């Protein structure tokens, strides 16, 4: 049943695994197998907040997200997908409550503008024009980028997977990776519960499980899983255009194109673990904050609550590239909660690196050896 041989084996059926497989196939590679332990989207991608933003605090994330937005704009056509990916560009509004935050946001906006991202610092009154139901008490200001937005993670992943399959990629779902075989300092194959696949290259796109995959070739990737929760309301008429996000409250709230409000919160005290059980405290905490920031939303009825894993890295930047220790072993993980929105461009760069081409944007500094040499690229703007 399972293929016995491939040039590249991609581990992980989320947005990164499927988009890397697609980009490799698009560049002409026909010998790709993608492995997923459960079903496509069963991990972090299918549990994410579905936001897409370019308002970042490092040049790296700004470029990765800006180029990804350009790709999202034409993704349905590029992938010839037969369903909408529900891409919308109605902006992201960051609400600012602390002086110290304001200083950081000013720096971020200057950086973003220098990279052609059309974000701007606005007053509380201007913010209220964009989101009329916003409570502006205690608000110092806001930043707004009109080309940020939303896409449906389920459909984006399926779109990449279908396009990759049309170009010859084989996808094995319900196939769990048990080990990776090496020969000398090279990868030689992947052992699964359905049989062994011999291969030249392994791509680790296993999200929160990426460190476990790294251990299979004896390397320590500083990526750890951390539960993040979200909940959603029943659909209502559209009345909120941008995502409203507060770093102060560790909170984000957006209305998806078909009407429901999706809201999530990061808990700074969340321990490292594979736990994805929703907590009873989460809806109570979020409801209090939402009722304060966006008062009319208090009438919304919550229909569902869930949790998923962020694949955290120490500087909240992804770990990309080939292992300096094990040839043919590539990692694309550690996205720290923003993998979905930067996947279209990141996957393209990864495919270029895997095929031995010079990636159009340098990603060398994103390899995991940056942690040993202390060259971290700390992202200040994460929830």
């Amino acid at each position, binding site marked *: 049943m399972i293929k016995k041989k491939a040039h590249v084996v991609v581990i992980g059926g989320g947005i990164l695994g499927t988009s890397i497989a697609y980009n490799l196939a698009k560049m002409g590679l026909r010998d790709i197998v993608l492995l997923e332990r459960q079903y496509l989207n069963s991990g972090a991608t299918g549990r994410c907040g579905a936001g897409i933003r370019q308002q970042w605090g490092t040049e790296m994330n700004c470029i990765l997200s800006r180029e990804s937005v350009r790709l999202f704009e034409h993704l349905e056509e590029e992938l010839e997908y037969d369903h909408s990916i529900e891409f919308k560009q109605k902006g992201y509004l960051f609400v600012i409550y602390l002086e110290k935050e304001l200083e950081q946001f000013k720096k971020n906006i200057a950086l973003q503008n220098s990279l052609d991202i059309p974000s701007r610092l606005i007053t509380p009154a201007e913010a209220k024009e964009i989101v009329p139901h916003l409570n502006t008490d205690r608000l110092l200001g806001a930043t707004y980028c009109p080309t940020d937005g939303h896409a449906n993670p389920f459909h984006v992943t399926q779109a990449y997977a279908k396009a990759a399959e049309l170009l010859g990629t084989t996808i094995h779902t319900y196939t769990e990776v048990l080990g990776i075989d090496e020969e000398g300092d090279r990868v030689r194959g992947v052992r699964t519960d359905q049989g062994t696949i011999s291969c030249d290259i392994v791509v680790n796109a296993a999200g929160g499980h990426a460190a476990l995959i790294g251990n299979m070739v004896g390397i320590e990737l500083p990526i750890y899983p951390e539960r993040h929760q979200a909940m959603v309301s*029943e659909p209502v008429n559209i009345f909120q255009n941008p995502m409203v996000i507060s770093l102060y409250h560790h909170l984000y709230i957006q209305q998806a194109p078909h009407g429901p409000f999706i809201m999530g919160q990061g808990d700074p005290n969340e321990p490292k673990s594979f736990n994805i059980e929703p907590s009873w405290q989460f809806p109570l905490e979020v*409801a209090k904050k939402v009722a304060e920031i966006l008062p009319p939303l208090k009438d*919304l009825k*919550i229909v569902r609550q869930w949790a998923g894993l962020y694949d955290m890295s120490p500087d909240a930047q992804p770990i990309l590239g080939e292992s300096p220790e094990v040839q043919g072993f590539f990692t694309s993980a550690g996205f720290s909660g923003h993998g979905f929105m930067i996947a279209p461009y990141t996957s393209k760069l990864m495919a270029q690196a895997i095929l031995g081409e010079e990636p159009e944007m340098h990603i060398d500094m994103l390899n995991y050896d940056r942690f040993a040499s202390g060259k971290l690229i700390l992202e200040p703007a994460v929830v």
Partner: protein
Amino acid sequence: MSDDKTIMCRCEDLTVEDIREWIAKGYKTFEEIKRVSRIGMGPCQGRTCRQHLLRELAKATGKTLAEVELATFRPPTKPVSLETLAGGEVDD
């Protein structure tokens, strides 16, 4: 009357035909069909459509109803307003 136009998921307005199309496209489990079609993701959280979808999946895969896997049940059991939740854990 053809039953293909019968509404299977009232919350998301999906017909039997819609669901059969997703199954024909290769989505063969409850979790997968839920994610692409939104069946069972509306206010009733699958109370109405769950049994119908299970029967369609059993038919399509040759499994018995008991063998078709359910999707994860998620809280809350019934829709709850944010105002009620914001009231906190104290009894009123």
